């Protein structure tokens, strides 16, 4: 408990320092609970998520960093490896491939990489996975783009 708190505090200070360094990621610690974080990440360019801003919720276990944090999308996203309803993410480093040397910041980076490179073979969102697997890239992209516009872009006017 103390170890995880100390480690999170270090990450917190690092984030404060690096805020400008990575303009695509904005990590925010909950005001009253250092084990709850949120992040805003920018959709990577040249993907259907470009232009969108996606919110992630982190729940950090007491055994952190020996155990991985739990992360999910709060913003709706159409992606084969993200559950459309719950926002749950299927990503190996959040499960068996976790390493205690990862940080919340590096998890965000891994999620951005996942947005750019979906893994249609382990889908949490079957509709989206099937579109990609059947080779209908255009169909997938238009759906993903539509949801980006609907859910991840600031409302105009």
């Amino acid at each position, binding site marked *: 408990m103390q*170890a995880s708190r*100390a*480690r999170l505090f*270090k*990450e917190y200070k690092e984030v404060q320092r690096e805020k400008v360094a990575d303009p695509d990621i904005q990590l925010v610690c909950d005001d009253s609970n250092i084990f709850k974080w949120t992040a805003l990440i920018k959709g990577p360019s040249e993907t259907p998520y470009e232009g969108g801003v996606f919110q992630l919720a982190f729940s950090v276990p007491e*055994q952190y*960093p*020996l*155990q991985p944090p739990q992360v999910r999308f709060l913003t709706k996203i159409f992606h084969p490896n993200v559950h459309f309803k719950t926002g749950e993410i299927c990503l190996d*480093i959040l499960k*068996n491939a976790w*390493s*205690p*040397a*990862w940080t919340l910041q*590096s998890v965000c980076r891994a999620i951005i990489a996942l947005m750019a490179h979906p893994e249609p073979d382990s889908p949490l969102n079957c509709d989206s996975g099937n579109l990609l697997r059947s080779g209908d890239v255009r169909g997938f992209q238009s759906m993903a783009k539509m949801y980006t516009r609907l859910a991840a872009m600031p409302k105009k006017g």
Partner: protein
Amino acid sequence: MDSEDDMHDANDVESVDDGFYSGETAMDSDDGDAADYDFIDNDSDDSDDPISHRSQQNYTILNEDDIHLRQEDNIKKISSILSISNNAAAILLRHYNWSVSKVNDEWFANEEKVRRIVGLLEEPRALPSGKELTCGICFDVYPCDSMSSAACGHPFCVTCWQGYISTAINDGPGCLMLRCPDPSCSAAIGQDMIIALASHDDREKYERYFLRSFVEDNRKTKWCPAPGCDYAVDFIVGGGTFDVNCRCSYSFCWNCTEEAHRPVDCDTVSKWIRKNSAESENMNWILANSKPCPKCKRPIEKNQGCMHITCTPPCKFEFCWLCLGAWSDHGERTGGFYACNRYDAAKKEGAYDDTEKRREMAKNSLERYTHFYERWATNQSSRQKALADLQQMQNIHLEKLSDKQCQPESQLKFITEAWLQIVECRRVLKWTYAYGYYLPAHEHAKRQLFEYLQGEAESGLERLHQCAEKELSGYLNIDGPSKDFNEFRMKLAGLTSVTRNYFENLVRALENGLSDVDAHGGTSRTGGSRGLGAGSSKSRGGSSSSRNKGTAPTARSRNIDDSGHWSCEYCTFANAKSATVCQMCQQLRS
């Protein structure tokens, strides 16, 4: 002389030398065609161990120490061949599923590639230089000497290492392939580091996984599947059977790890098991341990292994557990001592309540399945019972018997052997019912031969079981030594050996797919024909007209003539009235 009791005579056992039943004695018989009816390769050694006297053993049973030794041995071997540390050798062996030759081949084919895959660095790197270092997990800064690293030099503090290792160990056997915590690094973490840093409990867990891996990831070894058994088995595939007799006394099939199932093959076993679970609901009522007495309808519990049931007083009706027929009918009139292995016969005897219920309940196919399943399951529970009896015999009765009969316990070994044989026979018999279920219906000759052999097996085993169970109890519950105890010894030992031979022959015959059936051709059964024929035992008395003159085999054989069958001149096979050609040997009816 043709009553069943005569057969219980010890001397008579010796004379029951029809080829199928006694193996080698048939060879010595002066009856001309005796050799023809003998089985192939009869083992003529009466070794002391009734179960494991089959072909040589192609496996080794290992206890925990043996496993340790072998594991250490393999590690040392690889370490010296490749000139690497024991740690590195263990990592390599684990990665290649403990195959020394595979490690060898891969390593010498492409050492660099192997090193990369398993995470063994050629040149270990030291910690980065500097007085203080930042731990890659807690991000705290420590003096250099309180940090450590794997061969890659990525520094982590001791507390973080301990947490990392402990988490991995408690996550399961994956801890055997632990890598450096740095995500960009795949350096393997050796056993020495884990052992040095893990807590006492975690170390024990780790060592357990390490040992288990040697058995479970190794293609040559498996744990004995018996619950609670800690022995492992090292098996050399190729030649011989898959049967393994563990030191815990459980026997299982190496290939499918189901209970030993000779003479049926693994596919049949898995088909049968699937079938059973699909039908299990229908079968529940059959499995019930009690049935109504066919005479007085009171529920009778089967508490002895043998199928001969006597209802409680005052009824005392004696009946057969399998077909619920009167025991007195189980003689020649029903076509043999034990006709109830025959599905058709059981159907004909359908006058019994239980059979009727069964008919109402089941369609034809289920009824057929029920027939085989019930007999399969009954033999299974008889086997369990026999195992329990064997234990009780060894733990309690032998000592008592030794006192009562003034016999040293060492001379009562024949009783244990008899019970071991019963247990083994029940197992074989059980699987013959799965065999029978899958034997194609249109193969009439095979079916008939099969049923005949199985019937003989049932009755032979019943005789042995009766003798070891009921007759023995007479000598247990007596005040002084019995004069005829030696006769009993001879009889039981004789029955054990005769039954053992019979069952070994039966297993071989079934494993060969009863192939000799088709080979009989049209000519008479002489020369090379190996006399698996159903006629074998009948023909002992039956080759001449003396069939019914009361030799022991005749008393046991099925005198089917009464029911309108005709018996073949050549092989004595009992054919249906309508048949003009013998179904067994294709000879014309004369």
